C-alpha cells in the first residue's frame, strides 16, 4: 500500500519528533539520580536550558560548590532592616 503523503502540519510534527529523538539529551530516571542531579535536571527544564548528555555532572558539581558558599552566607544572622546592596556606593 502506498503511503499517503503527510500534510504540512504533520510533516512539521514528524520532523520535530525525529529531531527530539536524535537530540542527545540525558534521559531522566529519577529513581537512580542523586538529589542534586534531579535538582539540576528539573531546574534546567524550568529555565529552558537544554542539558546535553554528560553535562549534568559538571553543572551539579558547580551547583554544589555555589550552594556550599551560599550556606555560609545563609548562616549569618542579619538584622531585618539591613538593606541589600546590589549596586552600591563604596
Amino acid at each position, binding site marked *: 500500500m502506498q503511503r499517503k503523503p503527510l500534510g504540512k502540519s504533520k510533516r512539521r510534527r514528524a520532523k520535530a519528533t525525529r529531531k527530539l529523538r536524535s537530540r542527545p539529551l540525558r534521559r531522566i530516571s529519577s529513581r537512580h539520580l542523586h538529589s542534586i542531579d534531579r535538582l539540576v535536571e528539573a531546574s534546567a527544564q524550568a529555565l529552558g*536550558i537544554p542539558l*546535553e548528555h554528560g553535562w549534568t555532572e559538571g553543572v551539579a558539581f558547580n551547583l554544589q560548590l*555555589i550552594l556550599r558558599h*551560599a550556606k555560609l*552566607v545563609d548562616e549569618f544572622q*542579619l538584622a531585618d532592616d539591613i538593606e*541589600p546592596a546590589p549596586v552600591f556606593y*563604596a
Partner: protein
Amino acid sequence: MLDAPTPDDLTWSTAGDLAAEVTAGRLKALEIVEVTLARIRARDLLLNSFTAVTEQRARERALALDESRASGKLLGPLAGVPFAVKNLFDIAGLPTIAGSKINREKEPARRDASLIERLEHAGAVLVGALNMGEYAYDFTGENIHDGPSRNPHDFKRMTGGSSGGSGGAVAGGLVPLALGSDTNGSIRVPSSCCGIFGLKPTYGRLSRARTFPLVASLDHVGPMARSVEDLALTYDALQGFDPDDPACVNRTAQPVTPLLRRGATGLRIAVAGGYFKPRGAEALQAIDRVAVALGVDRDIDIPQAERARSAAFLITASEGASLHLDRLRGRARDYDPAVRDRLIAGAMVPASLVVKAHKFRRWYRQEMLKLFADVDAILAPATPCAAPLIGQQTFIFGDQELPVRANLGIYTQPISFVGLPVVAAPIPLSPLPIAVQIIAAPWREDIALRVAHTLEAGGIAAAARPTT
C-alpha cells in the same frame, strides 16, 4: 632622557619616559609604534597575548600625533605611548569578543569604550585587543577558543586571569600599559602571576561604558603597568564622570601622580591576618618582605572575610548566569565547557540566597569602613601561590588541595566585594614573582599608590624583566 634609544630601550621604557621623549621631539610616536608592532610580531607567537593588532589605526594615530607636535600643538601626558586593551573593551570596527566564540558574530563596535577614548585623548596609541578568559569568568588566563595567554616568566605557566593577555603583554614588554577588568580579582591575579603593577580602583570610579559586562555590581576596570608612576599617569588620564556608565559616580577627578612622592611616612599600615594569613611559602615571603620594608608590625582582622568571599562567589554565579541566560538556552554548546557548567549552575541558585548575599554586603561594607578609622592601608596576599602551570587543575593550600580555576582569587574576592581600591604590587621572588595587595579606603587610590611607590623606590616591589 633616553640616550640614543635602541628598540630594546623603547620596549622596556616606562610610559612616562616615552611620552617625555615624544613631547620633547627627541622621538617620533611613529617610531615607537613601529618598534611596538615589530615586537608584537616577534614575541606574541610565544605569549599569545593579542587577539587583534590594530596596525593601521596605530600608525595613523601616531602620524597625527607627530604632525600635531610639528605644528606646535600641546601633546597629552601619554603622548605616543602604545597601549592595548582586554578584548571586552569596545574597539570601533571590531566585534567585542570578550574571550568568547559567540561574540565573534556580533556587529563591529561603532565607538570605542570610554576609557580608550580617554587614553587617546591623553595622547596614547591603541595597538590592539588582548586575550582573556571567556566572558571574564576565569582566574587562569586560559581560553579554549584563542589558546592560553602564556606567562612571560615561564611559557609553561598561566598568566592568571581573566585579564591574562593584559598581564602577559605588559610583563612581556609588548606594551608599557594595558587595560583590564576586575570583577573578583581579574586585574590583581594576572598582575601577581605576571609580576606587574595593577590598579583596581574604587567601584564606580572609572567608567565601564562600552565594555562587555560580567557582574554589574562587581565589575571594575583599571590599568596595568610596569611602574607605579605609569599606573598613576594612566589612572589620572582615565578619571572622570561618565553618564554612559550607570555605576560611575559623579566625583571630581583627584589626580594622584603629584602625590606619589609623599611616600608612606605617617601612614598607618597593617597586615591582614586570619583568613588572609598566607599558607604558601611565596605569599608568606612576599608579605613578610613588604611588612619589614614598611616597618609594619601590626595585624588586623578583616571580619567575616571568608563569608564575604562566599557572598561574592554567589552573587557572581547568579548575576553572571542572568546575563548569559538567553545564550545558555540557545548556544550552550559554544561556550567553554568549564564556563558553561558554572553559568548554568549559577542560573539555578535560589534568589532568596542571592538577596541575602547582597544584604550581607551592606553589613560587611560597614565593618570594612570601621577598620579604616584605625588604618590607612591594609596589606594582603594577591594570590595564594605563584603562577600555576597551564592546564594545572589544583594547587596545595595549607593542608588542602583546591581547584585552581575557582580559587586563585581567594584573597582578592573579599576586597572587590565592597569595591575598595587596591594596588597589586609585584614582589620579584625567584623564580616567579607574586604580588601583594595594598588596600585602601574607598576613593583613596592615592594612598595605595603612595605605598606601592615607596616599595618600588626601595627596590622591594618591581616588575622584573623576564629572562625567557
